[in-house]
């Protein structure tokens, strides 16, 4: 096991890693930027070191600053948390070159899974379903033929370009005929290349992700899945497990397939495989996250596994110490991301000084937050103030506990999305477990904001 770990992150995840180190009896040093001098993690840590200015490029994203801090404080491992350098193969490599351990997948594993496109092909070869598509389309007849095979609706996409430019949603053969020539000439004009291909359009999809853990000996487990369909502009707001979108049998089958494929492909450490699930319940692999996720607490709540401790043990070269049969999921858990954003003002990030802060309590209530009264929320980083996670034996009980906890939660001085969460909880679509990733963007947040102002 490690002697001392440098925590190269901030906010609630720095605190979470610090807690894991303490429960494991491992020393910890919190690396912080000047904007985080007064952060809770830096204050609670036995040792903390300033690595640079507020600008993340010169602090949390600076490999030399972080590695130098680890060396001068006598650390033998670096925990990157999530975001920042957590999935950077180059960073993992340099950390190793300095005789330290990167707590995450080894550099060559990060490298292998770095490209989304290559990962889809790799895991497709290992049996995971990916979003169906065509090859390059020769002509209109070919397009019609391929669309028929894939099934409408389909996305007509230019081979060149990117960022959704020139993309066209096509719902039937007539629209495809009409769109084919236009898209082709648009692509030709826009990117100098008129070639097009088709991809299945997953309407009203759900976001379901499988949590896996694999040690360096190839022992692999999954810890079930999480449903992260409550999103706003691709940002997750609420996550829950188990997913209301899938039956128990379908959930475990998906998780089994996912962990088998990724273990065969040579993955190591904690990982999350993200899938889009369509209205029929078919899941398509989209990408893998090679790090601990923001929403890991709900998996911890239902499985009872300390995922950070598990991750640190795997990185230290220890075996998993458990098999799939040891992983039992109990009850239902929901996580709410408490953000410093104003829903009434187009979710603009908010900064300011926290006045009163009251974290809720009660059975099955967990608050992961770096807030304290008087804390100055810097505007240099993301707007996550904390995560409220709720566990209960059933989903409906979890919703009731969540509402009670959200009513207790008080963050004075900074505008938050707490009331928006309560409005979503009260919404029939959420209660029915039918939220799709496009819901908030489609209906807009206005009805929720209005409801939350009652």
């Amino acid at each position, binding site marked *: 096991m490690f002697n001392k770990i440098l925590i190269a992150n901030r906010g609630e995840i720095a605190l979470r890693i610090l807690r894991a180190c303490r429960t494991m009896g491992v020393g910890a040093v919190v690396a912080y930027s000047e904007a985080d001098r007064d952060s809770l993690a830096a204050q609670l840590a036995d040792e903390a*070191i*300033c*690595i640079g200015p507020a600008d993340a490029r010169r602090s949390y994203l600076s490999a*030399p600053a972080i590695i130098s801090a680890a060396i001068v404080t006598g650390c033998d491992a670096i925990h990157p948390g999530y975001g920042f350098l957590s999935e950077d193969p180059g960073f993992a490599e340099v950390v190793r070159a300095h005789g330290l351990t990167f707590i995450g997948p080894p550099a060559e594993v990060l490298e292998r899974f770095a490209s989304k496109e290559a990962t889809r092909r790799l895991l497709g070869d290992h049996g995971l379903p990916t979003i169906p598509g065509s090859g390059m389309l020769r002509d209109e007849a070919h397009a019609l033929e391929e669309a028929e095979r894939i099934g409408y609706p389909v996305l007509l996409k230019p081979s060149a370009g990117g960022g959704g430019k020139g993309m066209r949603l096509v719902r039937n053969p007539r629209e495809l005929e009409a769109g084919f020539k236009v898209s082709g000439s648009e692509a030709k004009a826009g990117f100098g290349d008129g070639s097009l291909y088709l991809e299945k359009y997953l309407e009203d999809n759900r976001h379901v992700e499988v949590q896996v853990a694999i040690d360096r000996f190839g022992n692999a487990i999954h810890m079930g899945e999480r449903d992260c369909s409550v999103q706003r502009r691709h940002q997750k707001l609420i996550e829950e497990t188990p997913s209301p979108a899938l039956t128990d049998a379908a959930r475990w089958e998906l998780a089994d397939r996912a962990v088998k494929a990724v273990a065969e492909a040579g993955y190591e450490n904690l990982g999350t495989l993200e899938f889009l699930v369509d209205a029929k319940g078919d899941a398509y692999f989209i990408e893998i996250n090679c790090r601990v996720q923001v929403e890991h607490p709900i998996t911890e709540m239902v499985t009872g596994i300390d995922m950070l401790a598990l991750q640190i043990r795997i990185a230290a070269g220890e075996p998993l110490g458990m098999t799939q049969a040891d992983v039992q999921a109990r009850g239902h858990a929901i996580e709410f991301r408490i953000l410093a954003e104003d829903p009434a003002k187009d979710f603009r990030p908010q900064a300011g000084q926290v006045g009163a802060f009251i974290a809720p309590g009660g059975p099955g209530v967990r608050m992961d937050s770096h807030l304290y009264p008087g804390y100055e929320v810097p505007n240099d980083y993301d707007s996550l103030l904390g995560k409220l996670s709720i566990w209960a034996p059933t989903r409906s009980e979890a919703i009731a506990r969540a509402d009670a906890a959200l009513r207790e939660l008080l963050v004075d001085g900074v505008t938050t999305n707490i009331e928006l969460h309560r409005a979503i909880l009260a919404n029939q679509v959420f209660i029915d477990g039918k939220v799709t990733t496009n819901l908030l963007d489609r209906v807009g947040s206005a009805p929720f904001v209005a409801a939350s102002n009652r």
Partner: protein
Amino acid sequence: MPARSQGEKSGQSDAEQAAQVQRDHLAIGRLADDLLPALIAKLAASGLGEIEVRQGEWKARLRKPATAPEARTAKAAPESHGHSPSRSSGHGRTDAGHSTGDESETEPGPITANSPAVGIFNPRRDLVVGMRVRSGDKIGTVDVLGVNQDVVAPVEGIIGSSLVEAGEAVEYGQQLVRIELPEAAPVLAGGSADAGKSVAATTGKA
């Protein structure tokens, strides 16, 4: 930082000296009020590193900090320490322009050279207490994974006590060496009729 003469005394009588001091003060005041702000603006707008202007028996030379990275480093460090009264070289230059040439500009409290990075601090080998440094002068390095980053004096002054030992681990922004501001009046009194005396409004490297 006050603009000040760096001329040398050269065996004049007390009366002569007093009269000279008065003339110097007037000249400095005039330079500071009229000439320097214009020169500073000119230098800032230009791509030049140094400007020298002669006026009567006076010569004013303005220099930019030696290199841009150094200037940034010196600037970032004091800003980062909210409680540190030390100023950046960039600010120093501006202050010189608005200085009236007397000692009222002198700030109280300790000024320090701060660490530009997290690593191991090594002072310049010849660094001794009492040594005079200009703003931007290198007074040591911080070894970051084998790459040295310069520790620079944020202001012109005199090296004071060291706050960390050589070879000690330091964090970003850590106060390393005290810089004492020189007594302004005796320095100002050093003017003479000799040619080549100058008003040093420079914040650049020596």
